């Protein structure tokens, strides 16, 4: 099963290497990892999607917590959360297919962000299913290259998962 971990880390050099090294040496599989600064410049949040059964996940979470630079690890898989991924995709487009592609873009509420003589570059955000769907819909036209950010996620509602713990706020 795939789990989504929300991990707060100290923004120290090497912290990504510590986390990535832990996953590789203990044989855990990372599906995606997205990292960036939080509202506090000293702290970064990693959203890690990891594949494994409950036993593996228990170890992943505990081993992550052992890292001194890791402040907080939360498995939000079973929580209510909003998740997004950003996709940039360059697809083959000529005068015959351009219209159809633009329709698909419309349907998925994606955007065309660049145009070349024989290509369109498309930006899409959404959850994983949507990103998969748009990728599949555009594949027949010939995808030249694509890049995905990996999933980022936050808990729904006014709940936060900051360093002081999960809080139900007014």
């Amino acid at each position, binding site marked *: 099963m795939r789990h989504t971990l929300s991990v707060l*880390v*100290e923004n120290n*050099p*090497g912290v990504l*290497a*510590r986390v990535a*090294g832990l996953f590789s*040496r203990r044989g855990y599989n990372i599906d995606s990892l997205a990292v960036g600064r939080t509202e506090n410049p000293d702290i970064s949040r990693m959203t890690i999607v990891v594949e494994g059964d409950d*036993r593996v996940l*228990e*170890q992943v979470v*505990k*081993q992550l*917590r*052992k*890292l*001194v*630079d*890791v*402040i*907080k690890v939360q498995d939000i898989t079973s929580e209510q959360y909003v998740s997004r991924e950003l996709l940039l995709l360059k697809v083959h487009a000529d005068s015959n297919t351009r219209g159809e592609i633009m329709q698909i873009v419309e349907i998925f509420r994606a955007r065309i962000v660049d145009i070349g003589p024989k290509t369109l570059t498309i930006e899409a955000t959404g959850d994983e299913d949507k990103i998969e769907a748009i990728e599949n819909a555009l594949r027949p036209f010939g995808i030249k290259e694509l890049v995905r950010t990996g999933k980022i996620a936050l808990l729904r509602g006014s709940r936060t998962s900051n*360093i002081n713990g999960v809080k139900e706020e007014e």
Partner: protein
Amino acid sequence: MELTGAQILIKVLEDLGVDTVFGYPGGAVLPIYDALYDSKITHYLTRHEQGAAHAADGYARASGKVGVCFATSGPGATNLVTGLATAYMDSVPVVAITGQVATSLLGRDSFQEADITGITMPITKHNYLVKDPGDLARTVVEAFYIARTGRPGPVLIDIPKDVSAARARYEFPEKVELPGYKPVLTPGEEEVNKAIALINSSERPLIFTGGGTVNAGAEQLLLAFAEKINAPVVASLMGLGGFPGEHPLFLGMLGMHGTKPANYAVSECDLLIAVGVRFDDRVTGDVNSFAPKAKIIHIDIDPAEINKNVRVEVPLVGDVKNSLELLIKGVKEKKPEKWLQYVFGLKEKYPLTYNQECGLKPQKVIETLYKITGGEAIIVTDVGQHQMWAAQFYKFNKPRRFISSGGLGTMGFGLPAGIGAQVARPEQQVIVVSGDGSIQMNSQELMTAAAYNIPVKVIILNNGYLGMVRQWQELFHQRRYSQTKLKNPDFVKLADAYGIRGMRIKKEENLEEKLLEAINYTGPVVVDVWVDREENVFPMVPPGGAIHKMIG
């Protein structure tokens, strides 16, 4: 007060109470060694950085204090790696300080540059590359705090040369603030109550103690606990001495070369109370047939050890002392007569024995050492057959008396760790039990013992083989002794070359007399004992087998 980075380092070490450092100088640590020149810290110059790391480790294991070692950048730092990995596997508090090339040269493949923080990431509890002299004092204090608290372990601090040369204000940081590092010290009440209920209702309880008991200094509490519920006790290699080896409730070491009573008891118990252990594969054998009839209570300070190798019924995450105190308070006194009768029967039926007929037996050497030291020596071992015989035949009644590379199994550990142990405990008899293979992996440290007149007694159980590997070849590879027969130097002459007293024992007749002479000698001694060449360590659980199915 404005000081150089190097002076800050030395000052903060002094302020932390460090009086002993093992190390080896070099280009990138020149400023640090210059500052050390004015310090009251005693520095022991080893002959190889690996020796410095093991010595710091042995010092820590013998004293319970943090061991400190210094090395220069590049090869100096990489030579620490085996020592740090050894300390990491056995949860030993060590702080390693390495010099690094100047920050302006970092990342340019400069002379003697190695990315030692990258290299040691998986074998340290934490590590640092300090880029600002203003961060040095705080970093060192943090490193010591991390090394000795929670589950102890090694921490490395890498200091570029310009950082140790630059100036900054020195102030001892009184507080450590690490938001991501908060060891759990007391187990939850609910779990404690569950554990108490399980203990009270169990008919065949067994205590399995490990290095965590020793690290926590919880040996008295463990004794009180075992005696209150009259549970027999088995120990891992790292746990030896955490419970008195001669206590009637003690069944010996369990696992691959454990005693039959210990391994049978594990297989028969209905409750296994694991105290500061990590269920290593050398302990469990086939993990699916380990303690098949038992529910398991697992006390450990490291939450990640819970359910890592075996599933447990009740986890008690916290300091071993706190956990045992709560259990002792909560449990009812009990005496499981039938169970005790069974395990005492096992003890009577299956004592550790060996064939005494042909030649000088290595087991006899250990038994004799035990006899003539009254069980009061610190025994430091290398890795292999001699290590197992020392674990089996020397009875450890007190903690920190058996010092051995348990997890990593590092040949070459013994001599430098013995030097470290002797420095930490000058009043104690320190005996290094080694093999003819292991001793050659760090024999250069004989010079360290000679130079400082560190009176370690090195007993080499010399069988002319890499004995443990040969044993496996005999049992599992049709006696095809591939690369295990050793041509050895004359160890007496080798000792002599270092200015150390060398002795040789070839016959059992004068074994005791000669060993007595060796241990009573005032300086370091090397004793080359020619033992029966093809003796095997038994009992033995074949690798991956169930631990109640032993051979020998």
